[in-house]
């Protein structure tokens, strides 16, 4: 799992803060009230040996996959090192050219950056055998065009939707449809929620990475390609789709419904627990963290729906985070690393374990099979599989998280500029032109 422009360690830090408080909570909740799929029965293979080192944050979907992998390959050693500053540590090891782990949970923007430099293990041979079983929108993120091959295993489908309190919506007389438009449907719903004195849609002070996540969703939904063209050659952050995305964010903010709290802080969870926050836009991977952090009495009353559409017939979802499992080119265990990758997200056992954790693996046999029956603590009796699968198949194939994506949406470009536009302090077209100029200045840094 991952979130926002996920080469940002701070978000991982946020995750870890929560994970520290609630790792046990997740373990406890996973067995309560959810109809989790049982991993398929596996044949034990004692002939496979070796050691793989993984670095990542605590409370990780690969924890579940690890357990299943070891059932099948008991003589393999999986050295899981879950540390807070794994991102900075990983980048330092990659820069040094030595000391990196065999497995790493990498954001798409870094896959593009490192893959284009030949710093990641090429997995084209493995992917070619199973590519028909993987969701195309996610598979794209492991493909590095300049190298003409795949570098990693598509991991977490970061489709995003609406999480909402079904009971409170009913009280307010609001219907959340699976086929809404932002304008006028969704904006009207937000206004109604605001009038009722409730909050919907998190918008932290200053916007921060939550704001740029919203921009990523909406830009993709308006038909944009992201901050740059998919070949990372030209800046598109000031194109029509991008400006429409910021305009939509401004309209959402102006409904008065947004919750001003920092991302996933105690204040945020308190707003959920008290019934103050009744709707939010969330990536699929958020579910596991929500279940770890919200009170028991508000579990089961939430429901999920696709994002509204920005244009008729356009995508009803977008991406935020969603990592790819990679191995550095320097790994001493390339074959074993590939075996783990394929097990993790290209087998029923691995995909089921990942799904049970809370992320959505890109493996179609699982998504079309056991996932279709999945119910969870958070969403109660709602069978969530069909909704998420529909969204996964709706992912825009024209939207790319290139090597420049992380920096473009990060602190010194879009993230620090967008709040003024949302609050009407800066004209959106002028503001986005400034953002584009800044991005154009640094874009050569991210081009090979």
């Amino acid at each position: 799992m991952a979130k926002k422009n996920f080469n940002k360690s701070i978000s991982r830090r946020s995750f870890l803060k929560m994970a520290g408080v609630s790792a046990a909570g997740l373990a406890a909740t996973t067995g309560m009230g959810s109809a989790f799929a049982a991993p398929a029965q596996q044949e034990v293979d004692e002939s496979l040996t070796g050691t793989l080192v993984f670095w990542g944050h605590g409370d990780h979907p690969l924890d579940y996959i690890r357990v299943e992998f070891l059932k099948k390959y008991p003589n393999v050693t999986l050295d899981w090192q879950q540390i807070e500053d794994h991102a900075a540590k990983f980048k330092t090891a990659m820069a040094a050219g030595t000391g990196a782990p065999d497995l790493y949970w990498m954001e798409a923007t870094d896959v593009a950056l490192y893959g284009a430099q030949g710093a990641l293990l090429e997995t084209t041979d493995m992917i070619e055998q199973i590519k028909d079983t993987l969701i195309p929108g996610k598979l794209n993120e492991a493909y590095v065009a300049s190298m003409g091959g795949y570098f990693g295993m598509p991991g977490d489908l970061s489709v995003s939707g609406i999480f909402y309190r079904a009971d409170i919506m009913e009280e307010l007389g609001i219907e959340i449809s699976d086929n809404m438009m932002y304008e006028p449907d969704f904006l009207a719903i937000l206004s109604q929620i605001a009038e009722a004195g409730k909050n919907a849609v998190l918008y932290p002070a200053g916007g921060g990475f939550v704001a740029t996540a919203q921009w990523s969703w909406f830009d993709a939904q308006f038909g944009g390609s992201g901050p740059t063209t998919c070949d990372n050659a030209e800046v598109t952050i000031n194109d029509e789709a991008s400006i429409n995305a910021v305009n939509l964010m401004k309209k959402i903010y102006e409904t008065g419904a947004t919750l001003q709290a920092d991302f996933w802080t105690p204040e945020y969870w308190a707003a959920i627990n008290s019934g103050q926050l009744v709707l939010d836009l969330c990536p699929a991977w958020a579910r596991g963290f929500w279940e770890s952090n919200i009170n028991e009495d508000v579990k089961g009353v939430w429901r999920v729906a696709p994002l509204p559409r920005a244009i008729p017939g356009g995508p009803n979802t977008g991406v935020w985070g969603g990592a790819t499992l990679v191995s550095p080119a320097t790994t001493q265990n390339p074959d074993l690393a590939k075996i783990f990758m394929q097990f993790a997200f290209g087998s029923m056992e691995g995909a089921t374990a990942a799904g049970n954790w809370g992320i959505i693996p890109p493996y179609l046999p699982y998504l079309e099979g056991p996932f279709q029956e999945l119910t969870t603590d958070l969403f109660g009796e709602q069978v969530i599989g069909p909704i998420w699968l529909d969204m996964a198949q709706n992912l825009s194939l024209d939207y790319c998280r290139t090597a420049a994506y992380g920096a473009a949406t990060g602190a010194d470009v879009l993230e620090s500029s967008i709040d003024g536009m949302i609050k009407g302090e800066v004209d959106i077209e002028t503001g986005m032109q400034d953002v584009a100029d800044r991005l154009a200045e640094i874009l050569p840094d991210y081009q090979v």
Partner: protein
Amino acid sequence: MTTQNQISGTPGLMSAPQVGRRSSIWHQIWKHRIEYLLISPFFIIFGIFHGYPLAFSIWLSFQRWQGIGEPRWFGLGNYERLLKSERIIGALGNTIIFLIILLPIIIGLTLVLATILNSPQIKGRKVLRVLYFLPYITSAVIVAIIFQLLLNNNSGWINGILEAVGIGRVGWLIEAWPARISVILMVLWGATGYNVLIMLGGLQGIPAELYDAASVDGADTIQKFFFVTVPMMRGVILFVGITTTIGLLNLFTQPWLLFSSSSGSGPDDATATLNTIQYSTAFQASRYGEAAALGFIIAILVIFATLIQLRLVRTAEA
């Protein structure tokens, strides 16, 4: 002195003083080879872990490098980018605001608290010293979580109290100036205890005779503080001033943890500091050359600020 001919056997190639100096240095090194051998571990370790990284960083600051692949020469491009960046100027402004507000408060408050703790009339001084020092050794992450809870807009205790007394809520974590004040409070809370101990150490080194003489001359407590304590503490105050200035110019942890959603920048970039920007430039945006250049700009600022403080003290002494 060893002559040129004795050294090279080739007259006219080198001037005598140069050869003599070089010869003298090698002679001295050879003469004291055991001593040099004994202290060499420090220089070897310093060279590997400080000298080489410093030299590499200087070189890196003139390159474009994403942490992978071959660095590309960028000349002064990174410095040029940084010096014309409005965000860097804004962060420098934030840092100066923190410095102007916090430096006199930390020096004044810690000196007064240390003077009180040094007074024999105060009971439980040892307990108080421990209490003052505790924040310094408490995990910053835990402190940040507690500050977030206290300063929460909707459910924070501070706003609860302010509302109860009729002042109303303050957007401690969601508005620019209150956000800066939140950072200032967190820094002050953490820095006070350590600096009180430093001040206390200085106070205990002032001879009691000076206070006795001041008493004989009719000085009251306030006069003793300003005409005995403060002048005698000048060196310690300078130390606290310089270390605090360096710490504030490198401010990172408090804004980073309090405003994690915005990489430490806070609302309207009000809490962005040079160090939060440096970290995100390196480890989020993967522009290591630019981050290295920013590191040197920060270093120059620290040196400059320290020199100003030293000059001010010398001027005052003169």
